[in-house]
Structure formats: structure tokens, C-alpha cells
């Protein structure tokens, strides 16, 4: 792969890297430092990337390793002193989904890292269970169980344990995501 091609590939992945880094570290500022480190390492090791394989998965592996070896402790310190990005970040969109999203982010931040990272990978980034397993260096069954535990824990934190708890308030709040702000009456 030529340098310009590789560079274009990296640029395309920057939004995903930032989103994953922010989800992992809980801070946008740390996320950007983490992405910068990841880009530098990726560039320096570009000969180790196998063309035809997933660049995203390769970059996530670098980013994740960098996070666990250098950033995790800093992440906790930043969160303690400044609060997480979930509490600070400006969110686009209407007010209802803003509130919904803020609640969700607080709950997401409470998950153990090992559960949060895999939930993000398979639930939002488009990576497969296989790729997530490879990135984390664990078996696919472990990924599946972490994802399930993460979902169960989130449901608990958001108080949506079962059918009975999925009351009209929650349902209309969820509907706001997809439709107008007009509440739906059954």
C-alpha cells in the first residue's frame, strides 16, 4: 500500500477512532491524544498492516493497547477532576433525545471497561464478534458473554429490566429517536 493510500485510509478512520477513544476513556481531550498516538504508531508500523484486512480492526487494536498501557490511569484522573464528557459535551439534536442520550452515556460510563469496549465495538462500530475477539485477544464466547452482561447491566442502570418496566414514558421517549417530537398516543 502506497503512503498516500495509507494516509487516506487513516483519515477515513479518524471519526471512528475518536468515537471509540472517547467511549473508552470518557474524555474527549484524552480521546484526541489517544488518536494522535494511534496515528503516529500506525504510520510507523504501516509495513505491518496486511492490505485486504480490516484497517479499522488494526487501528482499534493499536488504540486499545495504547489506552491500556498509557492512558487508563490518566483517564480516571481526568474524569475525577473534570467529569466525563457525558456530562459536558454539547450534543446535537432535539432536547428530548439530548436528555435521553445524556442518561445513556452516564450509564455507559458505569460499565466495566471490558464490557463497555466490546459493546461499542459490536454494537456501534460495525466490527464483527470475530474482529472484536481478535482485538481484545480473547475467545468469541467471551466477547458474546461480555456483550450480554453489558446489555443486562445497562438495562438495570436505565431501569428497563423487562416488559413491565418498559412503561409508556420509556416507550414514547424511545420513539422520539425515530419520529418527531410529537408524542405518540396509542
Amino acid at each position, binding site marked *: 500500500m502506497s503512503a498516500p493510500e495509507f494516509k487516506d485510509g487513516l483519515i477515513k478512520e479518524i471519526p471512528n477512532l475518536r468515537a471509540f477513544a472517547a467511549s473508552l476513556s470518557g474524555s474527549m481531550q484524552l480521546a484526541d491524544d489517544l488518536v494522535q498516538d494511534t496515528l503516529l504508531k500506525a504510520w510507523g508500523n504501516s509495513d505491518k498492516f496486511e492490505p485486504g484486512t480490516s484497517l479499522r480492526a488494526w487501528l482499534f487494536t493499536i488504540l486499545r493497547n495504547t489506552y491500556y498501557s498509557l492512558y487508563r490511569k490518566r483517564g480516571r484522573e481526568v474524569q475525577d477532576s473534570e467529569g466525563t464528557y457525558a456530562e459536558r459535551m454539547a450534543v446535537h439534536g432535539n432536547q428530548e433525545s439530548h436528555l435521553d442520550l445524556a442518561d445513556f452515556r452516564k450509564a455507559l460510563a458505569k460499565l466495566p471497561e471490558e464490557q463497555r469496549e466490546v459493546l461499542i465495538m459490536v454494537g456501534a462500530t460495525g466490527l464483527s464478534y470475530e474482529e472484536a475477539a481478535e482485538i481484545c485477544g480473547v475467545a468469541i464466547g467471551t466477547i458474546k458473554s461480555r456483550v450480554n452482561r453489558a446489555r443486562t447491566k445497562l438495562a438495570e442502570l*436505565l431501569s428497563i429490566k423487562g416488559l413491565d418496566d418498559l412503561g409508556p414514558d420509556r416507550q414514547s421517549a424511545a420513539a422520539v429517536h425515530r419520529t418527531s417530537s410529537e408524542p405518540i398516543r396509542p
Partner: protein
Amino acid sequence: MSGMKIEMPEPNGGDETDFEAILDPRVQESIGRSLKAHYDDLINAPIPDKFLVLLAQLEAKESRSSAEEASDERP
């Protein structure tokens, strides 16, 4: 956060089909939607220029050094 959990063998030998059934599909769907909303909001944030500048610098440095290697003009 209370430190790392020690990796334990999965109760169902890693097969989570039973576990999956515990969560109502509608709850799962709701979580999935929120997860997407969270991630898409982050994805859609504009890319800071510094990353593009950094990559442009790396690329320029590489093409400069490979040009030097090829012609070997400098002492």
C-alpha cells in the same frame, strides 16, 4: 471503578444463548438504538485539523526521506 476483574471461566462454557433470552428483545433494541445514537453523535463531530496536519507532515517527511535515499544528494 474497582480495579480489574479476574478473568473467570464463563458459566455456560461461553455459549450465551440461554443468557440472551433473559433480556426482552424490545429492551435490547432500545439499548441498541441508544448505543448507535451515542456513537453517531461522536462520529459526526468535525475532525480537528491537527490530525490532517500531522498526517500531511508524516507523508511529506517520508517522501522527502525516500527522495534522499534515491538520489543520495546530501552528504
